[in-house]
């Protein structure tokens, strides 16, 4: 039924060859990556799950609050779209009410002028608002009742870039009130190991990401911690590691603020404990929060149709693409 363009086939074959060449030094069986890691990056340790007693101690100390944010976009290209942000802080202590914060953004009402760098600025604006709403939500939640630990969704560095002031406030508050603050990274984007590799082996070219290297390398329950000096090179004020928290070959990352780096293992164990063995590696509770914070596209549409004038909605926010399926 479908005829495939031969050129496309050739291009895909070539691509595969190129990728294979690029990774040949490290995908090579002779190369002992684990030894390299232990010599240059950090130590590999086997973690144990927390016992119920340890868990109930955490419970008594206020439980865990997880924070996640979501964004939805509706409309066409700049400036005719609207973005909704929502942050949720949910505690494992079901007596503590969930904290929801929302924000709306549309370039129609903003100062940003159309310019060649517009795409980048748009993304910046989006990241900024999302990071801010997450930190605000976290702040509001910990101020209401201080938990034992506060888990942010994703790496912490994002907050220092996009929500600097608020983040500082949050860190200070957490330190003052003995709240452990760490982030769990489902989708790691760092290049710590890659950079190290490249500095040792000059024939490696292009960026090499940690997720590529760590894929399937660690055993279930193993954790790779990063030496302090490398941490410092990469980011500001965090201590981090990678955990294979499920049977899936992917690893998840963990960031903890510098001042609490002695608790890195404990938090890693917590992540391991809360992650189903046969999952993608994300702690169940984070998935729950993620699911609750998400607003579906249908809901957004319904909300916009309900609360915006038909004229405004159609004029500004319905794109040609939206109408294609009609």
């Amino acid at each position: 039924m479908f005829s495939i363009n031969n050129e496309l086939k050739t291009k895909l074959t070539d691509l595969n060859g190129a990728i294979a060449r690029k990774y040949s030094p490290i995908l090579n069986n002779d190369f002992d990556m684990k030894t390299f890691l232990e010599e240059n990056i950090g130590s590999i340790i086997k973690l144990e799950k927390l016992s119920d007693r340890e868990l109930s101690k955490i419970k008594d100390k206020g439980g865990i609050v997880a924070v996640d944010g979501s964004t939805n976009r509706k409309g066409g290209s700049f400036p005719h779209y609207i973005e909704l942000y929502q942050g949720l802080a949910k505690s494992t202590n079901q007596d503590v009410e969930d904290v929801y914060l929302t924000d709306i953004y549309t370039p129609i009402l903003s100062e940003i002028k159309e310019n060649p760098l517009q795409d980048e600025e748009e993304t910046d604006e989006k990241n900024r608002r999302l990071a801010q709403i997450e930190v605000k939500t976290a702040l509001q939640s910990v101020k209401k009742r201080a938990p034992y630990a506060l888990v942010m969704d994703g790496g912490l560095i994002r907050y220092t870039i996009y929500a600097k002031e608020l983040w500082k406030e949050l860190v200070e508050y957490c330190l003052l009130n003995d709240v452990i603050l760490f982030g769990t990274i489902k989708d790691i984007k760092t290049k710590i190991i890659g950079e190290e590799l490249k500095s040792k082996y000059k024939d490696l070219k292009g960026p090499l990401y940690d997720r590529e290297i760590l894929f399937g390398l660690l055993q279930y329950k193993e954790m790779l911690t990063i030496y302090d000096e490398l941490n410092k090179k990469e980011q500001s004020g965090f201590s981090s590691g990678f955990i294979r928290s499920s049977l899936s070959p992917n690893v998840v990352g963990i960031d903890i603020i510098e001042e609490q780096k002695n608790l890195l293992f404990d938090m890693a164990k917590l992540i391991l404990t809360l992650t189903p063995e046969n999952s993608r590696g994300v702690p169940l509770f984070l998935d729950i929060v993620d699911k609750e914070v998400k607003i579906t596209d249908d809901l957004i549409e319904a909300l916009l149709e309900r609360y915006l004038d038909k004229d405004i909605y159609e004029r500004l926010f319905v794109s040609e693409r939206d109408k294609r399926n009609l």
Partner: protein
Amino acid sequence: MKVLGITTQQEFYVGSKDRNFRINEFLVVEDKQGDLIAEVVEAQTFNRYIPLNVYGDFVDASVIESMKALGYDVDEETIYIAKLRLLEEALYPVETGSDVRIPKFSEIKNLMLRTKKEEGLVLGVIRNTDSLYDECEDEFKDLLYTFEERGLVKQREIPFIMDLKSMHQYPHIGVFGGSGSGKSFGLRVLLEELMQKEIPTIVLDPHYEMDFSDCPDYFKDEKRDFNGSFKCLQVGVHVGVKFEDLTAGDLKNLLDASSPLSDAMNNVVDVLFKNKDSYLSFSNRLQALTEAQEEGSVQRIQQRIENAKNNDEKEAWEVRKDLFIQYDKTCPYNSVKGILWRLRRLYNEGIFSKDSRDIENYLKEGFLVIIQGSTRILQVYSTYILNNIYHKRREYKDAQYKKAAADYFPPFIVVTDEAHNFAPKGYESPSKSILKEISQEGRKYGVFLALATQRPTLLDETITAQLNTKLIFRTVRASDIDTIKEETDITSEEAKRLPYLRTGDVFISSAVVGRTIFARIRAAYTISPHTQNPFDELKQKKNEGDEKFMRIISDKLPILGTDLLNTIIEIERDEKITFTQDELIQKLENLYKNNLIGRENTPFGYMYTKL
């Protein structure tokens, strides 16, 4: 509890965070249009995180446990959703977001209890009404017991009382359900209630199970005595057909019910049967005619007459000659023979040995009359007896209408299990025509049907359509469920539940109420004679046999293997029972195997000893 989602004038969804819903319970919606009563037709629970699936991940129990230890109980995220149907269509769709509450008893009393217990049949309880029981009036409390998992339980739900009087408007009852679904047991409860109300009832019982003399163990303290309210009559033993009272039509019906008659056979009966014939005179006539026909011609019969050895024989052949001349042309030999066979078969079954007067008398007394016999016999006999009593009742009513005098015959109810045998779909059967007649016009004369069957699909459709109240027990066969769906107002949700109903749970679809009620049949006060488990019975019989033999043998022990003959003689003398040597050894070995006697090895073979 709040109304959710998209609603219509008939149906809508209700959600709750803390209260689970039960199917068939009533709820009140506080809508802008006023309070509306609705029934739960589907109940669901939903948890976003169980069945342990978030973003396609399979969540194992250990993580759930760990989360619990952390203080986060995933179970608490469960929400309850119910689909509700309004009992009466509303003018506008129900407003989403309306509050929903549990009704007060007074609000729904009319929906459930239209009849006083004195005027109706207390068949069981309406399921899922226990929250209303306390508010219910005392006259409806403590009427019955039900069987639950933990055994006999006092009534704690609102009773289901079937309105007897409304039968006049909405006649006939159908009882459907597969084997083991509680159908026969439901029928038993129905009959018990009819007895208590002293309604004349005739029951066709092919299973010999409708006996009401035995009381089950669980009702030892509250024994109900139905003796004096029912009478079991066996066809051929207690009741039968008085041959002299038969008309040619009756006789043809009987013979036809035995096995179908051809046109020629019908003609034979019409021609040969004389009014006031006795069985003997009729069968002799048939016999004589066949013998004449076997001779083949008048000349040969004449020869027989001439060659007769004595006067009797001569006379007999003369009778045959007359018959031959008169009937040979109209009655073919094979048909006469066919009628004769059928007639003899009925005779041998004893149908002609008794009359049916008892049945009529007991009915007039308000008894429950149970007619027992094999399915075939009952097919034959019911045709006769139902025709007979139905027309008696009919004559009385017609005469009353014409203001003429006639013997009183009471209204009555006809009850039968395995009704598809008596009124099958697709082919004619004599008992079907009378049942059909009653189903169509019995209402006018106060004659009603209660038909039970496990195969509603096989029951005649005209009759099924006339059953205004239907009790539907567990049904598994898809074709039967389809029939039930067609014939009742049962909803597709309810039909889906049919294969999974517990024994004794029943949907009662009644034209009187106009909707289906989910009920549970009460515990019966009597017990079927067939409730003993056949495997218990085997064991018991064996034990009885062993004990009996033990008694016989015990004072003869020890018995030497070589001395069996003497023992056999002694037993024969004392007990009048004869054993062969092998039988005796077998029995002794059996006792030894069951550790009832001992066995020792001696130089003369085995010696059986007392233990």
